[in-house]
């Protein structure tokens, strides 16, 4: 019997504890979300009418299935508030991903052109701010963007604006916060693609008389498209569900879906509707998640 097979059995036994943990704390909770999204709102504690109790057994289950209601989902589809909220989330995520590509690309490209030793320093320098709390980074921007903050001081001093601008509670502030928070998720996959690129292709382009910028657009850029895709999706997916950034930096107008869910849950205490929002949000995310998974797999195949 080979040694590796010898090792496999105890290794599989090691799966038991984490497996059970994930079933209890990850899989089962989804069943609860689904169940409560199909329940009726009630003014009680907890604030929903349970449709199914395990204690009632099979009869109870049959009766419960009859009681399940898609009322909450009908509400989501009929009330503009929710539809617009989903649409805004997708739009904000798409615009942010675009800005992130435009700003992240030059940075990743510059990093890939640094001497080897400096590249490691640069990677570390991109990651380090992300070990500090996410909330602190947003708060740091509130400091900069507030009416008597540094940005206005500089702009007034340079006579670019005559009076301080209200930056906070605007879309601009929200986009700044999102771009700042997600920049490494864009830069690192892009850098990984750019730094692995075969530079002899560029030498060949130069030998054939390509200028630097032509070589970039004909060789480097097309070859980096998978990295752009991976980075854009890695940002796009979580931005759709973002709550803290639009809440602290954005305006009080149209909410993103994460904010709507939060408000339904904490302010309106309507747990069934909050759960229904979560279920639909998962469905919205499914398509980009599958595309992202495909891209990752293809990258892995290319590497091996």
């Amino acid at each position, binding site marked *: 019997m080979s040694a590796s097979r010898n090792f496999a059995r105890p290794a599989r036994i090691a*799966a038991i504890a984490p497996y059970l943990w994930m079933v209890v704390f990850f899989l089962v*909770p989804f069943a609860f*979300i689904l169940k409560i999204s199909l329940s009726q709102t009630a003014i009680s504690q907890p604030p929903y009418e349970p449709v199914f109790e395990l204690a009632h057994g099979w009869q109870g289950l049959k009766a419960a299935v009859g009681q399940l209601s898609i009322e909450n989902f009908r509400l989501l589809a009929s009330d503009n508030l929710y539809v617009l909220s989903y649409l805004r989330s997708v739009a904000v995520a798409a615009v942010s991903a675009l800005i992130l590509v435009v700003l992240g690309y*030059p940075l990743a490209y*510059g990093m890939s*052109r640094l001497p080897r030793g400096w590249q490691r320093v640069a990677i570390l320098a991109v990651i380090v701010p992300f070990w500090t709390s996410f909330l602190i980074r947003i*708060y740091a921007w509130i*400091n900069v963007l507030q009416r008597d903050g540094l940005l206005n001081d500089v702009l007034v001093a340079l006579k670019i604006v005559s009076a301080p601008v209200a930056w906070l509670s605007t879309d601009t502030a929200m986009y700044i916060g999102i771009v700042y928070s997600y920049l490494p998720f864009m830069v690192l996959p892009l850098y990984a693609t750019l730094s692995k690129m075969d530079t002899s292709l560029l*030498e060949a382009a130069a030998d054939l008389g390509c200028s630097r910028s032509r070589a970039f657009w004909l060789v480097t850029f097309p070859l980096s498209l998978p990295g752009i895709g991976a980075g854009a999706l890695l940002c796009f997916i979580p931005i759709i569900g973002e709550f*803290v950034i639009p809440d602290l930096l954005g305006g009080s107008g149209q909410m993103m879906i994460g904010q709507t869910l939060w408000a339904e849950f904490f302010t309106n205490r309507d747990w069934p509707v909050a759960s229904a929002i979560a279920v639909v949000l998962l469905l919205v995310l499914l398509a980009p998640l599958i595309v992202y998974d495909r891209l990752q797999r293809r990258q892995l195949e290319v590497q091996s």
Partner: protein
Amino acid sequence: MSGRPLTRLSPFNMVSLALGFAFLYLPLVILVVFSFNASRLVSVWGGWSLRWYAELLNDQAMLEAAWMSLRVGVSSATLATVLGTMAAVALSRGSDFRGRTLFSGMLHAPLVMPEVITGLSLLLLFIAAGAERGFWTVTAAHTTLTMCFVAVIVQSRLNGLDRSLEEAAMDLGCSPLRAFFAVTLPMIMPAIAAAWMLAFTLSLDDLVIASFTTGPGASTLPIRIYSEVRLGVKPQINAICTLMVAFVALVIVVASLVSKLSEAKSGSAAPL
């Protein structure tokens, strides 16, 4: 002239690097500098002072929240490291087993799942189970999230490891368990330490999941800071944020020293 190498750093590259890193670091530098501002007005510089740090020491609610966050961070990171490492060993060495696809799917999904969904679903579970919400529910929630990060980090280290050493140990009569603890575990220790550190900072950082899963009267530091930040900029907040930045910087320095030391140690042990 087209003869110069196209792979050299161009002026455009240098400008984008300078602007990019300024964008990443300036807000944090400003935050730290203004935490030492003597003036109550955040935008007016009134000279250097430690007064906001002194006021922080009298903020009982903030201190309690910090203590809660530390306890949750240490317990959930430790639990997540144990569970995540076991999961990584199973995925990397367990070859094929029933339910493997579901297992790795469950471990990867929380990495991209919006926090509002994870938080809400866990809360509904805790309510249904009748658990009293507070320290333990937040710890369980953070363990669930961070063990996935641990599993990914440790698994990639295990996959890159030379298996012939564990096989040699077993050929020499070690039981698989003994081979794991004597050979494999010491080699993946740096990855496990890094994973613990990441799990700890993720827990310390989390606002959304903790808000859903905690109960009345048990605030973590981010929950406390969030409720203050909503009311506007305050120098005390700059001070507590600076302390957190300093703490994380310290953790990173210690981590890199530890990994240097262990590298040096394994380097000197190699000729054996």
